[in-house]
């Protein structure tokens, strides 16, 4: 999946013209809210956390509380399942 990262390696769904395009299987099937709560550090790059710890790419890690991202993804999947049921004529609109 194609996403865009800013200078702080935070992921975005849309490029504001300053971001870098990356391809990451990790985000396949993930909703926008989930993706935009993550950092993607490309191989060969380093990210320094505010406490001074340095992390090396290639790495994917949340910068928002994971519980929030997980909740958003589960809601997204529930809506997908609901839409599928409607298409199959087995659910209510």
């Amino acid at each position, binding site marked *: 999946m194609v996403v865009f990262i800013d200078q702080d390696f935070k992921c975005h769904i849309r490029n504001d013209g300053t971001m870098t395009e990356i391809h990451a299987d990790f985000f396949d099937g993930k909703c926008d809210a989930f993706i935009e709560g993550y950092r993607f550090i490309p191989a060969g790059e380093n990210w320094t*956390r505010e406490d001074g*710890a340095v992390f090396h790419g290639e*790495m994917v*890690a949340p910068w928002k509380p*994971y519980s929030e991202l997980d909740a958003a993804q589960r809601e997204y999947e529930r809506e997908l399942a609901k839409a599928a049921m409607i298409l199959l004529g087995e659910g209510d609109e």
Partner: protein
Amino acid sequence: MANEYAVNRADLVRVADAIREKGKTSDQLVFPSGFVSAVDGIKAGGLNFEVVGSTEQPANPKENTIWVETDQEITGWSFADIEPVTTPEEPIGHVWFTPISRGKQSINALAENTIQLYLNKVFQRTSGEWTVRDAMIYVNGEWCDVGIQWLFESGYGENALFDYEHEGNSTIDVSVDRIKTNYSSTNNGQMLISAEFDATGLNTLYVEAEVTKHNNNTYVKTGFAVNSTAHAYIGLLSCAVYFNITENSSKKVYTLPISELDGIQKFITVGLLGAEIYNIWCE
């Protein structure tokens, strides 16, 4: 000078409260003998913690209690910045604490001149050797694990704090010193070492390993990951954090940021991987 004085009850209560606070007690004090006894019992400066040993967590602990999980009576204790020698000289039951310069939580060791004491490993003399013990400290009204949270430590593998699970078409060899993984097939597949740990309040996962066989196949990625689900089968796409290892390396420390994870997590390695893992810990 008169032999008897009238004292305001409120003033007596104030004095008793002051004695109780200094003596770290909530007992009712009877004037005058109880006051005298309580004052005599106040430690002048000195230590601000106590060490207790039991198999069950103490129900009503005081602040700065160090609880050592043991069924062996504690006969004494000591602190040293090195681990105890192989042949103990201390009596059976003696507990040896090894403080560290930093850790997850500390105790306030001295009442007046505060020294924050971070504890790491805890040993107790059993019949002829030192045995590693689990320990917790009671700080700010709750129990906390001591020091660095080890998931696997070279030399103490048999006393590792986690139980591992293994799945997939691969071999895994766990000894005291390291975990050796090897996936011999050239086909894609999953190989997991999963260990549950509570990531709440932890910031970084460290893995010291030598990677002898990596695979950069686009469908299967090698790496260390932390999974937020409780699934027995854990694929890369269900992980919360992952680090993709793209080349073999000699022994080095890999780090993953886990500060945004709370609750029970699972450390795993995923995919085609050959490695020798020496230490896994969290801070």
